[in-house]
């Protein structure tokens, strides 16, 4: 009973945020019925990309920007293709197992990457990811070479729903996405999440406090990659095929653009980035050939004028807002974990 009462008190105390979340939830439930048929697939891809960007941010909180993240998505996709298509595993079992497979691949990679920093980490993580992609291209058994694997089955879930259709699949993807985001949100707010952030802010200080920097960095890399693998499972079962070209460097570049545009300081930053740019891409559909140019221009201008991304815009605008609004924003801003250590000169 006390548990229930505590929950009620929590809801009442956070009624504003709970209200917003409920409205967002309702919006996400009715959204697929409001858009055109093909746009449901755009929404499914958006949900998958949200898992990818949030898991990517999880790794960046330690200060390392992994360019092997998209190959990790591919790792999950290939794992589920082999498990469900090749060995006949059910979808619900393959989903966590494929995530684990991506995590295992990340663990394997993290040894040579452990000592690299900055520029070297970019290039080394890219090379490690690309080595995976080259394996998929080169070895026809079991990965199918250039043509990939085309025997990924439609997921069945104890007979519930026809997941070959877009709308039921949207709800499946929504459920998995919400679950992944909840776990990653808890991780971000936990002691573990704060430990990752202090590694980015001041690694030497963290080490002097007895924090094993290498261990926590590898842990972030493995966990983030495992969630990327889960995103890969959703991708493979929607497209019914896995091709190595999907996980090339072009996809990584778009991932970087989404994340930088949104900003990585807060949990919601990358989600805002990917949602805004997906929307922009839909609006610019008639100009699709120019989209990379527009994205390129946007990203350069963002880095020059808004280096912390779109999510820092309210904070930047605060001085121009009126006093009442100012106090309102003040109460709404919540700790992100970056406040725990303040360094002079940062």
């Amino acid at each position, binding site marked *: 009973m006390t548990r229930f009462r505590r929950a009620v008190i929590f809801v009442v105390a956070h009624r504003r945020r709970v209200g917003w979340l409920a409205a967002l939830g309702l919006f996400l439930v009715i959204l697929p019925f409001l858009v055109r048929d093909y746009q449901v697939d755009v929404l499914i891809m958006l949900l998958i990309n949200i898992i990818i960007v949030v898991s990517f941010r999880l790794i960046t909180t330690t200060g390392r*920007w992994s360019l092997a993240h998209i190959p990790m998505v591919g790792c999950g996709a290939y794992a589920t293709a082999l498990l469900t298509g090749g060995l006949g595993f059910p979808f619900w079992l393959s989903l966590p197992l494929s995530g684990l497979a991506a995590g295992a691949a990340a663990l394997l990679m993290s*040894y*040579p*990457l*452990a*000592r*690299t*920093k*900055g*520029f*070297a980490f*970019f*290039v*080394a993580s*890219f*090379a*490690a990811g*690309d*080595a995976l992609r*080259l*394996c998929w*291209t*080169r070895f026809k058994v079991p990965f199918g070479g250039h043509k990939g694997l085309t025997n990924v089955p439609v997921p069945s879930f104890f007979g519930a729903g026809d997941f070959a259709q877009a709308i039921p699949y949207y709800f499946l993807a929504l459920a998995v996405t919400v679950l992944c985001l909840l776990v990653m949100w808890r991780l971000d707010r936990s002691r573990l999440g704060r430990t990752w952030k202090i590694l980015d802010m001041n690694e030497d200080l963290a080490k002097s406090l007895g924090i094993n920097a290498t261990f926590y960095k590898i842990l972030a890399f493995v966990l983030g990659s495992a969630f990327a693998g889960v995103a890969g499972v959703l991708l493979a079962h929607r497209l019914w095929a896995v091709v190595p070209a999907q996980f090339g*460097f072009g996809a990584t*570049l778009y991932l*970087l*653009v989404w994340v*930088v545009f949104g900003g990585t300081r807060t949990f919601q930053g990358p989600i805002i980035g990917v949602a805004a740019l997906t929307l922009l891409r839909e609006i610019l559909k008639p100009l699709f*050939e*120019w989209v*990379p*140019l527009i*994205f*390129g*221009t*946007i*990203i*350069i201008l963002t*880095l*020059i004028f808004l*280096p912390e991304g779109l999510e820092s815009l309210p904070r930047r605008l605060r001085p121009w807002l009126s006093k009442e609004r100012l106090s309102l924003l003040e109460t709404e801003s919540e700790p992100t974990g970056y406040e725990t250590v303040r360094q002079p000169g940062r």
Partner: protein
Amino acid sequence: MEFLSQTILNGLMTSSFYALIAVGLSLVFGVMHIVNFAHGEFYMLGAYTVWILFAKMEWPFFVAVAAAIVLVGLLGLVSERLVFRHAHGKVLSGFIMSVGLVFILQVLVVKIWGLGKMKPVPAAFPQVLEIAGASTSWQRFIVVPVTVLLLGSLWIFLERFRIGRALRASALNPDAAALQGISPKKCAAVAMLLGSAMAGAAGALMAPIMSVHPYMGHSVVWTAFVVVIVGGPGNIKGSIVAALLFGFLTTVISTLLDSTIADLVNALVMLTLLAIRPEGVMGHD
């Protein structure tokens, strides 16, 4: 015996190409701390310049190459002024800005010159060259003397000239160099001019050999990154050593097995070297 000399010749040509493109990248990284992903696009534009001036307007080959070096160098200068200067030496910002530049340049090239059409560049020197049983065309071989010439003049510039020494000082310690009156902005501009010009030279020389298309810079820039990392970022001597290592490795494995395996082995060799010496084979800190 013939196989050996042929492999050495091919390895030498591949290494020269790698060295030419990687040294420019390393120079830019050393002075500006910018990981310029658009280096590959500068290379592509060098090849396009030769296609336009040599293949279509029939200028002499070396005049076209010189024009490519100058034009791409100037493009690097402009991009430093408009884009990279605002990264303020932050490696991540600089890298992502260069990704934006890649998108912009690729779309512009596709829009101006088209995607599907072939852009054949005839060989300027189709004569066959034979050394010790190995044979190749002069067109392929020409990259070796030109690389030696360009890297040699870069070395003289960095060692003997006042601006060159200022550039090295700024790379070592920008603050100390600034205290001696060396402007970090001017150094960045000079480094970007020279680095981009070398990418342009590489593209121009490779235009008759490679197929010229808007995405040709992609694979090249990654090879260059691997070479720069293994040599130690900003370390030009290290880059040359690493270029020789990977040039010969790629040639031998491509000849014996296939090129995908060669790429795979390159990646694995790089990861192994980084696990042992994260600061690069020639690094010392």
